[in-house]
C-alpha cells in the first residue's frame, strides 16, 4: 500500500490554500500535479544542460542529447517498449493525430472501416472522422460498460483499425483491452489504445497486450504539460509516412529529388523537441516505478470503493458509471439533484475542493447516457479517504447554498 502522507509531502502545490481552505485536488483525470523529483529534473536540465539535441558537438549538446535519449528509453520501458518504438509528442491528442495522418491515411483501402466506441474522448474520435472513412462505434450499457456483444457484431473483416480507450476519463470504466486486441487480431485489424487515463493508474505492457499503437500524455501522470508519447510497433512504422516534416526527421534533403527520411522514432519528431518535457516525463515514470504500479492500482481501487460508498449515501446524488471498482478506475462521476454541474463545482471550489464539471470532452457518451453534464472527482496517488470526506462535506454545502 502507499504511504499517502509521505507522498503528499512530495507535492508542493498540495500545501496551497484555496478560498481559505486547504486544497483538495480531485481533478486528476484532467491534469495531475507534479512532485519534487519531476520539478527538480526539469530544473536541472534548464539550469545545467540546456542545448539543442542531435545537432551540436559541444558538451551541453552532447549532454542534452544523451539525457533526451535516456528519457526515451525510460518512458518506453515504462510501457514495456524498446526505445526505438517510442515517439515523443505534445500529448495524447497529437499522438492520435499522428497515427491517423501518418498511418491510417495511407493504409486504409476503400471499403475498410475504423471501429471505436461511444465512450471515447473527443481526441479518439475526431482525428479518425477527419479521414472521411467509414467509422463504427461500439455501444455501452446504461452503466457505462462496453457492450462486447455489440463489439463482436461490429468487428468484421472490413475493420482495419480498432481504436479504444483503456479507461474512460468520464466514467472510469476499464475496458477489457486484452480481449479486444485478441478479437481484433483474428480479423487482422490493427489496434490503437488510448492510454491517457491508464498508464499511470493501471499500468500496461504493450508487448504483453500486443497492440499496434498506444498513446498517452505526460501531464496526466505527474509530468509536465506539452509532452506525451506514442508507441509505434516496428512493423507499423514501416507502413508509415512522416507526420510533420522539417528539421530533425530527415537524413538527406535535396532540392531536386525526394528527401530521405530519418530512420526510427526521429522520423516522426520534426523540429526541436520538448527536451526538458521528456526529461520531466522520464522522472515521472521513475516516480511511478518506485511506488509500484500494483500498489498504485490497489490504493486507488480501495479509494474508489470508499468514494462510491460515501457518495451513494447522499440523498439525491446519482452515480454515473460502473458500480464495481474492479472494472472502474478512480473516477467518481455523478449528477446531484437538479443542480447544474457547474454550480456544484463552483460551490465545491469555495470549500477548496477542485473537481471537474461538464461533459469532459465526451459528448457522445453523455448523449448516450442521456446526460447534459456531470460532476467528476478523479483520484490519484496523493489522495486519501480524508479528501473524499472533504468532498462529501462540501457537497452538503451545495444544498445549503443553492437550496
Amino acid at each position: 500500500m502507499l504511504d499517502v502522507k509521505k507522498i503528499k509531502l512530495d507535492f508542493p502545490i498540495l500545501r496551497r490554500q484555496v478560498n481559505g481552505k486547504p486544497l483538495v485536488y480531485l481533478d486528476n483525470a484532467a491534469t495531475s500535479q507534479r512532485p519534487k523529483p519531476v520539478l527538480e529534473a526539469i530544473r536541472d536540465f534548464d539550469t545545467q544542460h540546456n542545448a539543442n539535441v542531435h545537432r551540436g558537438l559541444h558538451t551541453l549538446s552532447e549532454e542534452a542529447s544523451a539525457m533526451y535519449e535516456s528519457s526515451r528509453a525510460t518512458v518506453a520501458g515504462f510501457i514495456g517498449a524498446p526505445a526505438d518504438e517510442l515517439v515523443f509528442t505534445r500529448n495524447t491528442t497529437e499522438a492520435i493525430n499522428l497515427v491517423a495522418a501518418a498511418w491510417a491515411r495511407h493504409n486504409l483501402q476503400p471499403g475498410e472501416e475504423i471501429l471505436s466506441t461511444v465512450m471515447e474522448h473527443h481526441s479518439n474520435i475526431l482525428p479518425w472522422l477527419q479521414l472521411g472513412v467509414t467509422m463504427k462505434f461500439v455501444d455501452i450499457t446504461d452503466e457505462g460498460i462496453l457492450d462486447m456483444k455489440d463489439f463482436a457484431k461490429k468487428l468484421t473483416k472490413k475493420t482495419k483499425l480498432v481504436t479504444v480507450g483503456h479507461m474512460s476519463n468520464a466514467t472510469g470504466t476499464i475496458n477489457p483491452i486484452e480481449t479486444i486486441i485478441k478479437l481484433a487480431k483474428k480479423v487482422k485489424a490493427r489496434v490503437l489504445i488510448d492510454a491517457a487515463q491508464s498508464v499511470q493508474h493501471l499500468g500496461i505492457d504493450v508487448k504483453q497486450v500486443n497492440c499496434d499503437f498506444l498513446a498517452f500524455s505526460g501531464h496526466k501522470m505527474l509530468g509536465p504539460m506539452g509532452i506525451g508519447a506514442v508507441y509505434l510497433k516496428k512493423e507499423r512504422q514501416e507502413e508509415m509516412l512522416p507526420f510533420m516534416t522539417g528539421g530533425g526527421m530527415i537524413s538527406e534533403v535535396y532540392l531536386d529529388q525526394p528527401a530521405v527520411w530519418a530512420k526510427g522514432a526521429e522520423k516522426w519528431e520534426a523540429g526541436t523537441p520538448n527536451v526538458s518535457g521528456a526529461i520531466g516525463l522520464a522522472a515521472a515514470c521513475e516516480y511511478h516505478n518506485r511506488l509500484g504500479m500494483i500498489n498504485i492500482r490497489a490504493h486507488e481501487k480501495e479509494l474508489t470503493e470508499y468514494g462510491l460508498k460515501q457518495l451513494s449515501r447522499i440523498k439525491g446524488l446519482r452515480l454515473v458509471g460502473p458500480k464495481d471498482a474492479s472494472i472502474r478506475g478512480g473516477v467518481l462521476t455523478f449528477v446531484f439533484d437538479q443542480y447544474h454541474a457547474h454550480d456544484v463545482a463552483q460551490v465545491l471550489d469555495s470549500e477548496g475542493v477542485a473537481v471537474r464539471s461538464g461533459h469532459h470532452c465526451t459528448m457522445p457518451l453523455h448523449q448516450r447516457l442521456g446526460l447534459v453534464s456531470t460532476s467528476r472527482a478523479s483520484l490519484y496517488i496523493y489522495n486519501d479517504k480524508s479528501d473524499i470526506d472533504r468532498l462529501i462535506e462540501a457537497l452538503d454545502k451545495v444544498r445549503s447554498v443553492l437550496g
Partner: protein
Amino acid sequence: MDLYREEILDHYKHPRNFGDLTDFELKDSDRNSSCGDSLEMGVKIKNGKITDVKFTGIGCAISLASASMVTEMLMGKTLVQADKINDQAMLKRLGIPISITRQKCALLGVAIWQKLKLKLK
C-alpha cells in the same frame, strides 16, 4: 458566496418570463455546448417597443438567472433603449465579479438578445 447572492438565487429558482415560446414569431437560441446550457428567447415588438419577452431552456444558476434578468431589462423598452442592453450592461446588472470561465454562462441570455437584434435590422 458572492456569486450565489440572494437576488441571483431568486432569479435562478423563480426565473421571470420563463415559459413556452410557441406564439412568438421572433425567437432565437444559443448554447454553451461544453457546459450543457441551452436557452431560447423570444420577443414581441409593437410600434418600436418590446411588448413581451420570454425565455426557456436549461442551464446553470448563473445562465438562468442572468437570462431571467435580461428579460426584465428588455420588457417594455423601446428598441432604442433596448439597443444599449449588451455584455457590459449585463455584467453591471449582475453586480458581482464574474470569473473568465463563468462569463459565457453570465452572457448567454444577452447573446441571444444580440442575435435577435440583428434579425430586426
